[in-house]
């Protein structure tokens, strides 16, 4: 954390940072892969935990208190604090950091899935029931498609949040692009800024992919009627 190198702060650092990226593609690629392995694992587990729970609770219309509390509590947990707390979990850095990232990723996914499903127009659900659809059919063919935009939005928030926090995990042996960012003594300010640019691109890319996915999914269902 101590900055041993007295770099000058100036606009000139940005061209230097771009040069750093061009000169070190191997290093940055390796760190990006590490970064996305940690983030991907955390997003996957958060999805497995939060999505079914949010969908089922929303379908039953129960547990709004749980959904709201989880989202409020999740926001009050600072990412750095979680990463530091997770250091107590085990001696395994990857598992520790992944656990912290899962805790960060669950609230937006759970809350959006819950309110997405619960917010589906009750008249539509009643109409489906009147047509003789079972509860399972209503969930899979009516509620889920209508709730998809909100559900995907929740996943996008979680993904951006997790990729951002995986950077901070470098202080707890997390590897990834944060390794370069917190190590100015080795990589100089140009490396720090270069890695910051790369991690911003990763987060932005993930957000873009999920935004496109959302558009694709909704378009199909809108054109179906």
């Amino acid at each position, binding site marked *: 954390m101590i900055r041993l190198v007295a770099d000058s*702060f100036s*606009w000139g650092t940005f061209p230097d940072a771009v040069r750093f990226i061009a000169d070190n593609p191997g290093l940055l690629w390796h760190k990006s892969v590490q970064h996305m392995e940690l983030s991907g694992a955390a997003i996957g587990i958060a999805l497995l935990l939060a999505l079914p729970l949010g969908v089922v609770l929303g379908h039953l219309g129960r547990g709004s208190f749980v959904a709201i509390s989880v989202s409020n509590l999740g926001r009050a947990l600072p*990412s750095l*604090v979680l990463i530091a707390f997770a250091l*107590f979990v085990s001696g395994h850095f990857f598992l520790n950091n992944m656990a912290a990232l899962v805790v960060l990723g669950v609230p937006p996914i759970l809350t959006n899935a819950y309110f997405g499903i619960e917010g589906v127009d009750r008249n539509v659900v009643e109409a489906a029931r009147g047509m003789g659809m079972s509860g399972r059919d209503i969930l899979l063919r009516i509620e889920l498609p209508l709730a998809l935009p909100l559900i995907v939005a929740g996943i996008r928030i979680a993904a951006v949040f997790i990729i*951002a926090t995986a950077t901070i995990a470098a202080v707890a042996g997390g590897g990834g692009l944060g390794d370069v960012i917190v190590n100015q003594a080795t990589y100089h*300010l140009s490396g720090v800024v270069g890695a910051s640019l790369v991690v*911003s691109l990763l987060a932005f890319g993930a957000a873009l992919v999920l935004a496109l996915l959302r558009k694709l999914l909704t378009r199909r269902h809108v054109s179906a009627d």
Partner: protein
Amino acid sequence: MSGFGILAQQPVIPNFGAGSKCETENHAFCTGWVADHWSDTLQPALLQHIKLAAIAVAIGFVLAFAAALVAYRYRRADQPIGLLSDFLYTIPSLALFQLLVPLTGLTVTTVEVALVSYTLLILYRNILEGLRGVPVEVREAARGMGLTRLQSLVRVELPLAVPSIMAGVRIATVSTISIATVAAFVIPEGLGRPIFIAIGQDVFKTEIIAAGGLAILLALAADGLLVLLGRALTPWRNA
């Protein structure tokens, strides 16, 4: 002279300050350490943290309020402003802090610019949604009563938008308190600093739990206070 003899027989054990057994063995939580270091470590960090967050939310509110008023009046401005704040929100906090360092150095300015950026999206959206949520009939009634556009905004539309605005202020405040822990990467201030130091000292648990717990409590306390403020600002809703 005899004193020296006794000392010489003792093995040399490095003494890290006046660490108690609990501290040197790194137990889960040493209340003694917290009592000893409240005034020199935890309290200053807490006060710095409050200051960092309060300044950021205040500046963010002024900027977002102005932007939301512009977008409310001129609908065409909404999309570019929304896209910009959306984009800013996607940049990881640690990266944004570092990207600002070449411009503003390792200073409080760097931290505040980053923190303010993160408040903008939430505040802007909530202020704008609050204003747009005012029913058309209400606005027309206000005009019909002879209120000018400005009077209608100040006396009718803004008060009705308070619940949505306060919801935004709550989210922005809590997330700013959370992100401000990351400021310790750039400046030696805030509750993130003791956490960093503790991670560096073989993960000294007491300090991590104390500083981390303070950050969480601060966020929850700020949230609770803002709920009360919201109620005080909208007395007509409590009936």
